[in-house]
């Protein structure tokens, strides 16, 4: 008999109006990294939440080390050595790393929390697995990548032998992903078994031993990664062939739509992040901004969209100045914005998905007449968008919160693209999307380009920038330090440029 640490057999989980998991089986061997693959809304997070005790399955059984168990809540999961890092982190911002890790499991001395001891333990654990986490830092001061490691440490601190990671790489930069992969490998060497949810097939090929595929809530099967290919994985998961390179005609740029001149922007800490940047985007072209996170991309977007006031410089849209206009005015002048952080900016999670579809246009006809909302028109519109963009949701009345991460993103994209703006700003538009959805979104962006719209794409994903853009602007330290054409460059050169190696040569300020 094989040595399985976890077996989930024929699991079924229903939500009102939807079967999220139907007869799914997944078996995790000791010391393996097991990928869980499926489209957005296929039921991956749900299945893992069942294993972690957050949901109770309607049918099926769970075995831990061959023994049948009943995981009624996360504490039981903890006791069984199962730890989970969720798609969206659950950390207390104002606490330190150590305080977050021990939360609920505080070591005590004379009835008081023994923080010293905890800090030492955290430092030791971090050392042992090469996590390089500072036990004393506050969560709000550390990067997303670090926060994720804190989540991993939290599970290890609680004695996890099985680690569930729900789309850990979706929020990371390519550099951070490489480091995470190293960490995962060292965890496995220490005897920990990992279930990894990811949409990135390359990652599966690189680190995973086996891969279980689910499609629309159904278990499709488990394959050995060594015996498969990305093409096979993609077609298993989507149920059809998927093309990875996006087909597109050459761009046919028209007049300048967006023109940014000598822009300077400070971030919230009053540090200058955009330092005299110039950028033009023409009608009918997609300009991709390549760059490592934190080089001023967010500030650039916020300045254009009116979310942040600028220090100096000017921004023009179709030759009309939009510098420092309010977000409402910027939207009205024809700008759409797919925000990088969909939970913070993109959606009101407790609104139904239908109401989210009119977040910028609720006050306009036909959604509002004389200040009264017309819910018929709002929900008609939502229904149409949901169908057109294949947003998988039980209905347009479902709260946005209940949608799977990828489907939330599709809803935002539907809303933004459908407004037929002159300029679409897409920040990480395919983060957390499955390959099929990525293909779809890329097609949509190119379609919009072909309709004569200007598209500004910001992505940390080199593949995406290379595939979709007609022109690539490399951003480093608050400036565009190089303009390159995708057909004349390669990932290596881009990588070097992104690290700022061009700076001296070009003599940029």
């Amino acid at each position, binding site marked *: 008999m094989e040595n399985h640490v976890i077996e989930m057999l024929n699991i079924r989980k229903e939500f009102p109006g939807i079967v999220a998991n139907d007869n799914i089986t997944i078996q995790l061997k000791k010391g393996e990294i097991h990928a869980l693959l499926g489209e957005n809304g296929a039921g991956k997070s749900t299945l893992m939440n069942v294993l972690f005790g957050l949901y109770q399955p309607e049918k099926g059984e769970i075995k831990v080390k061959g023994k049948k168990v009943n995981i009624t809540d996360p504490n039981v999961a903890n006791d069984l050595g199962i730890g989970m890092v969720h798609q969206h982190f659950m950390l207390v911002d104002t606490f330190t790393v150590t305080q977050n890790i021990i939360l609920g499991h505080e070591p005590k001395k004379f009835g008081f929390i023994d923080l010293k001891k905890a800090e030492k333990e955290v430092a030791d654990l971090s050392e042992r697995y090469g996590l390089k986490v500072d036990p004393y830092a506050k969560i709000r001061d550390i990067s997303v990548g670090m926060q994720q490691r804190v989540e991993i440490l939290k599970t290890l601190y609680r004695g996890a032998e099985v680690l569930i990671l729900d789309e850990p790489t979706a929020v990371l930069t390519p550099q951070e992903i490489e480091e995470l992969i190293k960490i995962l490998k060292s965890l496995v060497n220490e005897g920990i078994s990992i279930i990894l949810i990811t949409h990135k097939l390359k990652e599966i090929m690189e680190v995973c031993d086996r891969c279980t595929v689910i499609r629309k809530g159904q278990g499709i099967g488990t394959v050995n990664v060594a015996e498969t290919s990305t093409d096979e994985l993609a077609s298993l998961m989507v149920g059809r062939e998927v093309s990875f390179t996006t087909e597109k005609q050459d761009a046919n740029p028209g007049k300048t739509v967006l023109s940014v001149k000598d822009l300077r922007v400070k971030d919230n800490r009053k540090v200058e992040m955009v330092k005299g940047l110039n950028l033009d985007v023409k009608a009918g072209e997609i300009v991709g901004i390549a760059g490592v996170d934190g080089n001023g991309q967010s500030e650039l977007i916020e300045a254009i*969209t009116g979310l942040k006031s600028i220090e100096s410089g000017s921004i023009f849209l179709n030759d009309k100045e939009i510098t420092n206009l*309010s977000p*409402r005015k910027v*939207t009205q002048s024809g700008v759409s914005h797919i925000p990088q952080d969909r939970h913070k900016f993109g*959606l009101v999670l*407790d609104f139904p998905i239908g*109401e989210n579809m009119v977040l910028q246009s609720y006050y306009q006809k036909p959604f*509002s007449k004389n*200040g009264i909302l017309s819910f018929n028109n709002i929900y008609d519109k939502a229904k149409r968008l949901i169908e057109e963009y294949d947003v998988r949701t039980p209905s347009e009345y479902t709260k946005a919160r209940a949608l799977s991460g990828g489907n939330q993103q599709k809803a935002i994209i539907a809303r933004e693209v459908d407004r037929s703006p002159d300029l679409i700003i897409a920040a990480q538009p395919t983060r957390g999307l499955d390959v099929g959805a990525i293909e779809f979104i890329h097609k949509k962006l190119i379609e919009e380009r072909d309709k004569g719209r200007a598209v500004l794409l910001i992505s940390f994903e080199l593949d995406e920038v290379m595939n979709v853009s007609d022109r690539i602007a490399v951003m480093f330290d608050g400036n565009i330090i190089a303009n390159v054409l995708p057909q004349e460059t390669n990932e290596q050169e881009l990588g070097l440029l992104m690290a700022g190696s061009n700076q001296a040569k070009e003599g940029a300020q």
Partner: protein
Amino acid sequence: MFSNRMFNLLVPIISVLLGLIAGAIIMLSFGYNPIDGYIALWNGAFGSPYFFGETIRQVTPYILTGLAIAFAFKTGLFNIGAEGQVIVGWLAAVWIGTTVDAPMFIHLPLALIAAAVAGGLWGFIPGLLKAKLGVHEVIITIMMNYIALYVSNGIIRDVLTDSKDSTDTIKESAALSANWIMELTSYSRLHYGIIVALAAAVFMWFLLEKTTTGYELRSVGLNKHASEYAGMSVSKNIILAMVISGGFAGLAGAMEGLGTFGYMPTHSAFTNIGFDGIAVALLGGNNAFGVILAALLFGVLKIGALNMPTVAGVPSELVEIVIALIIFFVGSSYIIRWALLRLKKEGN
């Protein structure tokens, strides 16, 4: 087993039941008969036209302050200042009611509007400070409560009267009370105000759920960042929410000034109508219809309690304890929710 909606209904009902049971246990342990006590309570609230009239009268301002707090909550704000807004609303209503000469169809609405405007202004100040300077509304509204209390006492003593501790009675043309209602209810102080309160509840529901303005207010309450991203003005909505919330509370003051009392005495302490509104809003789930039911419950408890000492010998302090216990159980509804979820799990 339970749908979400059922859940939201069950939690307050169970809270109330637990509060009543706890109250019964306390009565028992002090040697009183809880059944007699609760019968006296019931009769004290509904047993005669007079009691019924008094109960509804008490419910009226509770609905309005409950709405005030609930409205602010829906927009993500905690308006502890309803108390002060009640006081300034009361004062404004009585001021107009005593000094202006006009036919009723002008005078009464004018007095009501004055109360709402005064309350709204009292909400505007903390709203403005919150929106522009980020000062927490709880701190400012608490301070505004004291300012309202002492300023209104000063105005009554030195501006509206000559060092008296109460204003004159308002003119007939500004009164919410009506003889036929009083006669019908054996001379209780019931007045037309209940219609104002119910209309206010409908207004709140309509504004929040059906209008563009309400959409913005709810959106800002749930996610400021997304609202800003979508082009709404977060500060404008914070201020607007506080003004409307204050307006409701100001109207509650008008109920006292134009209805129940017909004048305004100086107050040595807070009226508590505003503070009780917090509990009403909480019990009513911050929902306009829920607030009406919760206000009814509070009115029944408050007025019915007056009957308990005389009929059942139970001290009215005990009723205060029962009310406190109900609030406690509502406040800890998390525990009830958790217990229900447990039940639900085992049910499957």
